[in-house]
């Protein structure tokens, strides 16, 4: 067996082990209580369910990421978040890129059914994700996003659809009956 062939065989086995390990870890995480680092998790189960007046969400500006679960499908992931004027927002970038279209499925799922659960500091909050398709009036939010994550997001990126911005509103019965995307 030539040296090149030996190296090729070794590469095959190492690659097989690595791919199997990553796929297994990702599948295992799907049944866990929440996401871990980058792999999606299952439903957010643990943690007190918040019941009370709408909080001032500005405290999330000091938290790197939060856990977010959609109700349909029941999958959770770790997302960036920011608050402006006491409201909480989550978003997904690179939505006009090929990678974004292939990889990021939750934004489209959230438009279909915006019911979500956030878990922040071990407390769960029921929310309703409403997509904002215009960046007008979101200058202070985008300034906070850029300060927090050292990004260069602009309201124009929301207008162009490259960033899908969602306001996470309180989830009430009336909100559940409101069609996704309807800000009323």
């Amino acid at each position, binding site marked *: 067996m030539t040296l090149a062939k030996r190296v090729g065989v070794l590469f095959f086995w190492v690659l097989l082990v690595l791919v199997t*390990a*990553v796929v297994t*870890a990702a599948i295992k995480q799907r049944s866990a209580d929440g996401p*871990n680092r*980058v792999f999606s998790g299952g439903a957010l189960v643990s943690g007190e369910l918040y019941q009370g007046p709408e909080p001032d969400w500005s405290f999330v500006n000091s938290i790197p990421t939060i856990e977010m679960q959609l109700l349909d499908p029941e999958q959770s992931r770790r997302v960036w978040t920011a608050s402006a004027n006491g409201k909480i927002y989550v978003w997904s970038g690179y939505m006009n890129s090929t990678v974004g279209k292939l990889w990021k499925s939750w934004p489209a799922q959230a438009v279909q059914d915006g019911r979500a659960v956030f878990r922040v500091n071990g407390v769960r909050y029921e929310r309703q994700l409403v997509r904002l398709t215009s960046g007008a009036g979101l200058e202070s939010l985008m300034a906070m996003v850029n300060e927090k994550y050292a990004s260069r997001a602009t309201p124009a990126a929301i207008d162009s659809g490259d960033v899908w911005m969602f306001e996470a509103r309180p989830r009430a019965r009336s909100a559940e009956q409101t069609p996704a995307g309807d800000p009323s």
Partner: protein
Amino acid sequence: MSRLFPRALAVIAVTAASVWFIPGLDDGVELAFQLVVLLASR
């Protein structure tokens, strides 16, 4: 060459069982994957 397929299946089974059942191994795999993605995206 004829034994390649069963050998590959055995490797997949042992690797998957190890990641699934050994505590902390799945987290280590995910951390390594995260680092690879971060480096590749730079």
